[in-house]
């Protein structure tokens, strides 16, 4: 019976991990902006989570625990590929493709570009808070930084995004008004 119980718990744990795959992938993608790398990071995270499952004491904190592992995988990747990521502060190049020029898709791509243009630390904090919905305490634990750092990074990130993205709000409002006139 004990063995059956263990097997069932292990199976449940794997299901829980699988349920978190998309969220982890989104987070990884928001950090690195590369679909294949995001997939690799997600895969590494899930593999490590399986190997270290005994380290998760509170199953209710699975989400933030996985984020911590993902973050470590991401840092490890950055350490190994330093030269590839030194342009962190640079804005991404704007490509006028048909995809970019299309309404909703344009907004999505602009937001992703704006996120990608944030310094790494700010990008990590804002995505953990806004995408994953982690508390500030959990973010501080995940990134191993003081709570004050989390709050100031978040504040700076949002300030930058305000200046880059809020004109879209005006634009979309204009669109709504025009529709109502028609």
């Amino acid at each position: 019976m004990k063995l059956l119980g263990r097997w069932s718990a292990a199976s449940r744990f794997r299901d829980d991990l699988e349920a978190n795959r998309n969220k982890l992938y989104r987070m990884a993608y928001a950090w690195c902006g590369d679909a294949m790398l995001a997939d690799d990071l997600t895969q590494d995270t899930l593999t490590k989570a399986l190997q270290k499952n005994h380290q998760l004491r509170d199953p209710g904190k699975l989400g933030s625990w996985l984020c911590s592992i993902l973050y470590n995988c991401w840092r490890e990747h950055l350490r190994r590929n330093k030269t590839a990521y030194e342009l962190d502060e640079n804005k991404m190049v704007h490509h006028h493709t048909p995809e970019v020029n299309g309404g909703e898709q344009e907004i999505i791509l602009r937001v992703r570009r704006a996120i990608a243009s944030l310094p790494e630390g700010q990008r990590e904090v804002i995505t953990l808070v806004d995408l994953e919905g982690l508390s500030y305490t959990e973010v501080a634990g995940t990134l191993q930084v003081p709570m004050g750092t989390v709050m100031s990074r978040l504040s700076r990130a949002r300030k930058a995004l305000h200046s880059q993205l809020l004109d879209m709000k005006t634009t979309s409002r204009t669109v709504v008004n025009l529709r109502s006139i028609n």
Partner: protein
Amino acid sequence: MNNDDKWKDCRLHAFIDGQLGDDDSAELIKEMAQRPELRQHVADTRYLKGMIKQAYAGIEPPTGGSRQSTSKLFSLRAGLTGLAATLLLSIGFIVGWSTHAPSTPANIHLAKAGSSVVNSNDPLLTGGITLAPVNTDAHKVILHIDQTDTALFQDTLNEVERLLTTYDSTQTQVEVIFNSSGLNLLRTDTSPDAARLRRMMATYEHLRFVACRNTIKRLEERGIKANLIDQTQVTPSAVGHIIDRLQKGWVYIKV
């Protein structure tokens, strides 16, 4: 921004994120009632939060190829899948170990992408001819592509980049040789990602893409001119080139 402003700003974000205590929240709400610009700022930030969620809502892990099969390892709903995978891995490991002793993390990755690694005395490769024993140099790798499979091609390029960025760049040498229908991947008019090939050749000093002249001739006989991507090298025969490399101790991987 002075310290007081910074604190107020952080307090505002904590309120927006539901991280502020009840008393502080009540105080801030009172303040917002008096200050429309503060209300506007909160509304704008909430709008931003919504946009960020929306921007990544449709992002899903890629499916297909080796990645999908790896993900299946985790679901393990059917015990047989796991068992079969384990058996396959074991067999792969034993075969790999017996045919290629100095295994490196790099070729383990490549093996994952559906490739096979052999040494110079593999009778399947040499058609039964036994070559003189050579010392294999794990830092010299030749990959062989003879099919136009875009997904496999991209996976191969990913692994090549991983190999070249992970290991000592002064020692590692990688060649990717294309023949048969794999040559299409090197042709300017048919390559699915010529830009990436050019970038890789410009970036990595010890990487070479090699085309088979026999295949080019066969295309010409059919009236097709093969315009290859710049900097691509041409060898008289892919098989001859591979044999030459094996004799020099390169690790051969058939993609």
